[in-house]
Each structure stands twice: as C-alpha cells, then as structure tokens.
C-alpha cells in the first residue's frame, strides 16, 4: 500500500494545492459535463478551451495577463457559438468554423509577437503541480460561481434540453438558455485551464458524464455519478503521476476512457426504468 500511495505526498504543500485545485476542477467539470453530454455539445466544450488559448496568445501580445485573454475569448466564443448554431444540424459545422477562425487569430498573435509565447503554450497542458494557495482560492471562488450560475439555470436548462417544444410553450427562452449555458462552459474552461490545462478539463467534462449517462437516466443521479467519477479519475491521476512522474494528462485521460468504456459495456445490462428510452433517444 505504501508503494502505491505514498503518504508523504499529502504532506507536500504543492501536492495539497494540486489535490485541492484538481478536485475543484473535477467537481465543476462533472456538473457542467452532465449538461454537455445531455445537450450533445462536446465539440463546443472542446472548442471553447482552444478558443481561450488564442485569447491568451493575444493577451500576451498586448502585454496583459493571459487569464484576461482567456476569459474574453471564451466568452466571445460562447456567444458566437450560441448565436450561429441555433439548429442542431448546423451546430457542428459552425463550431468547427468558429474554432479554426479563433485558432487562426491565435496563429496571427503568435506570429506578430517578437517573443515566443511560452506563457500561452503552457496553458495547453496546465501546471497543476505549480499552483499557489492563492490560485487555489481563486479557482474555488470562480468554480463556485459557475456552479451557482448552473443552479439558477438548472430547471429551464433541463426542460429546454430534454424537450425544447414543451419548454418553448411554457415560455422558457430556449435560445437564450442555450447561449447562457455555453457561457458557463466558457467560464468553467477559462478558470480551470491555467491550473489543469485544456486537455484535462475537456477530458473531465466529457468522459465521466458520458459514462454516467449510460449508467443511469435520472438527472440528479447522473450528475452525482459524473462528479464522483470525475473526482476518482483526478485522484488516481494525481497519485499515479506523483509515483511515476508521467504527465497527468495522459493518466487522467486513460482513466476516464477506461471508465467510459466500462460504463458502455455495463450500461445496457442494467435494469432500467422506461424513462430511459425516452431520455436516450433525446426526446
């Protein structure tokens, strides 16, 4: 046991900070991911992280803190995706185009910058073991506000996702709710990227929630399960990374994939209530 989990790691301040930030990012990713999977907007989640990267490159060019560029671009991207991708069939293509246009802009910022934008590149992989205690509080506060935003959106968002027509008939502003949700995804990505990186947060948003959705059809249970699996993957990732020195992005994405494949195998064999069919067909 001692060889698998070295108790000494919990005494290291940098590991404490990494565990705290990792857990907060994982929890946030689980909650947001539940809706991402339900709405089928994984591509938008992937795109918002990368769009933020372009913004960080721009911020470095004009000499501002990268976080600001990240937030501004993620917000702008969320609005662009929401405004252009109204109907389901066109959403995919518009996401791709907004994403490449933003990355093209990022290429321009990097080319115009006389210095190599190391700070911007660092964001791709994040620096979870280099997180300060201040950053932990900062991430926690911002993550909490994202969860609070989702709590406010919860009912209308769920209704608009599961049955858009009924929602519309009941006076829910379906389109606005969709855009606001993407804004929350954008902010969630922006606040977690500096610590855990684009790759990790995307993996934690999509995989655990995808696994949860093939195991249960009840919204609250699926969300709880997504958070639980996401936390599990993060802790396993941090512990193994501490032992081996391997990149944490690799370990966590491998753990998440294993969870997802396991759930896909087990899911169909579970007894289900009839609601499940209606839920999965996206009705």
């Amino acid at each position, binding site marked *: 046991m001692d060889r698998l989990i070295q108790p000494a790691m919990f005494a290291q301040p940098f590991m404490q900070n990494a565990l705290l930030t990792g857990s907060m990012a994982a929890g946030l990713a689980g909650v947001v991911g539940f809706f991402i999977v339900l709405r089928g907007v994984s591509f938008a989640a992937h795109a918002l992280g990368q769009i933020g990267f372009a913004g960080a490159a721009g911020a470095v060019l004009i000499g501002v803190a990268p976080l600001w560029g990240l937030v501004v671009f993620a917000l702008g991207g969320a609005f662009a995706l929401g405004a252009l991708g109204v109907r389901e069939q066109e959403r*995919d293509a518009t996401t791709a185009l907004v994403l490449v246009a933003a990355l093209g802009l990022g290429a321009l910022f990097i080319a115009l910058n006389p210095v190599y934008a190391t700070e911007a590149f660092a964001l791709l992989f994040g620096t979870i073991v280099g997180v300060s205690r201040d950053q932990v509080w900062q991430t926690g506060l911002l993550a909490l506000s994202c969860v609070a935003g989702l709590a406010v959106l919860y009912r209308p968002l769920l209704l608009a996702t599961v049955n858009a027509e009924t929602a519309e008939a009941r006076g829910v502003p379906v389109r606005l709710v969709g855009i606001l949700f993407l804004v929350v995804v954008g902010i969630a990505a922006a606040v977690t990227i500096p610590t855990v990186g684009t790759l990790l947060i*995307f993996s934690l948003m999509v995989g655990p929630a995808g696994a949860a959705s093939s195991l249960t059809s009840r919204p609250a249970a699926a969300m709880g399960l997504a958070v639980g699996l996401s936390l599990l993957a993060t802790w396993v990732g941090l512990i193994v990374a501490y032992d081996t020195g391997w990149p944490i992005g690799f*370990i966590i*994405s491998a753990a998440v994939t294993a969870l997802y494949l396991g759930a896909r195998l087990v899911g169909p064999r579970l007894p289900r209530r009839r609601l499940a069919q209606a839920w999965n067909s*996206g009705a």
Partner: protein
Amino acid sequence: MADWVRQYLFSPDMFSNDQVTGALLAGGVVAAVSAVLGYFVVLRGLSFIGHAVTDIGFTGGAGASLLGLNALWGLATFCVAAALGVGALGNRARERDVATGVILALALGIGAMFLYINTRYVSAPFTLLFGSIFEVDPDTTRVMAWVGLLCLAVLAVLYRPLLFCSLAPETAEARGVPVRFISTVFLVCMAVAVAEAAQVVGVLLSTALLIGPPATAAYLVARPGLGIAIAAVAGVLETWLGIDLSYVSYNWPPSGKGWPVSFFITSLALGFYVVARLLRPAFRQRMGAAPTRIRAD
C-alpha cells in the same frame, strides 16, 4: 494597376516565386479534395470527427517519430484507427458526440505521454497545428494529388448510396443499403484525405477547408451536385486568396513581418460562411428551392 493595390492586396510577382507557386498548387489540390469530401461530412453532421481525426493524427505523428518511423505513416494510421473507433462506438448521433470527445481526449493524453518520453518532438506541435504550406516540395504534392484522386474515386463509386444514407438513413436501411458499411468506408476515406491534408497545410487548415466551403455551399443551393461544385470552387478560392494576402502582408504593419497564411484562410472560411448565411433568403428566392431540402429532415 494602382500602386497601393500592388503593394497591399495583390502582387503579380508572387507567381515567379517557386515557394508561392508550390503553395498554390498544393493548397489548390487539398482544398478541392477536402471540399468534395467535406460536403458529405457537413451533410452527415460529422464535423466534430472531421476535426478530431486531425488532432488524433498529431499523436500518431509524435508516436511514429518516437519509434523512428516516418511521421506520415503514424499520422495516417492513427487517423484511420480513430475513424474506425468512432464508427464502432457511436451509432446514434448523441453517442457519437461523446465517443468522439473521449477518444480525442485519450489521443491527446497519449500525445502528452509521447512528448514526455521524447522531448525531441516538442517543436513539432506548432508546425503540425499551423502547417507549412510554403515549404511543400513537388513530390509531396504529387503523392497528395494521387491519394486525393483515390479518395474521390471511392467517393464516386459510393456517391448514390452515400447520398441516400445521409439524407434518409431509415429508408436506405429498409431498402437493403448496407448503411453501416458505407458509413465506415466513408469515414476511412475522410480520415486518409484529412491526414494527408494535415501533413501539408496543418491541422487547422485541414479542418477549415473540410468544413468551411461545404457549409457555405449547403446554405446557397439545395442540389448536391451543384453544392459540391460550389464548395470546391469556394475552397480553392479561399486558399488562393489566403496565400495571396499572406504574400503581400509583408508590406503590412508591423513592417517586414508576414502574417500567417492560416490566419487568412481560416478567417476567409468563416467569412464566406457568414456571408452565405446572410445571403440565404435572397438566394432562396432566386433559385426557387429551399436549401434546407437537402437536409434529412
């Protein structure tokens, strides 16, 4: 020609530059092939896979270089494997979205692992993402043209059943069309073409050229044949305009620094698309057909 046009917008000198003519040729081939394949990618709602495949291919390239193999083979192998994996895991649209995401995240994670093992490859992500269209040698262009032609030939054979499956999958299945098989063959075809394109113009441009022109065309006309033709023309036009602007941008501020060609082509791809969406009502009136008719619903 006015001097300022020559200086800031279009300079005929560029045709006497070998790098530029090479880029025009390679870019033109990639743009035309991508647009034709991309029409079906957009029609079938596979844009996420079309993009993910290239990101995944980057991991393959890193892995191949780790083993001392040719990066192109690693790239192509990973692209095709990813296409097959997504095909196997995602039958329904909702599943496909998540399955693509999980496979993409895993591939990027493996890429991070490769980078950790082999630090030699660290500068490669930048090149692979943004490409180096001005440094394509004629031999590569020739290979690319042949692979592209092969993909188009497969597509020509599949054309009718593929269109049928894309527009009305249930009816096609009921009539005995092997929907699953055709969809897998198409995914592999797309993966090969996209891997080829990504190797030359970068991941970013391969996605832009795969999705942008066809999405633009689908807004303007309903007939698939005409749509494919418009997409190909738009793709080549965007690419050539982008190369031209990148060439003259050496005269733009800040002086002496060229603006990257990927910036121009991706912006043009998004720009054409937005204009097409704005023009749609006018076009629909004149052509007398609702463009949405090609959509399955």
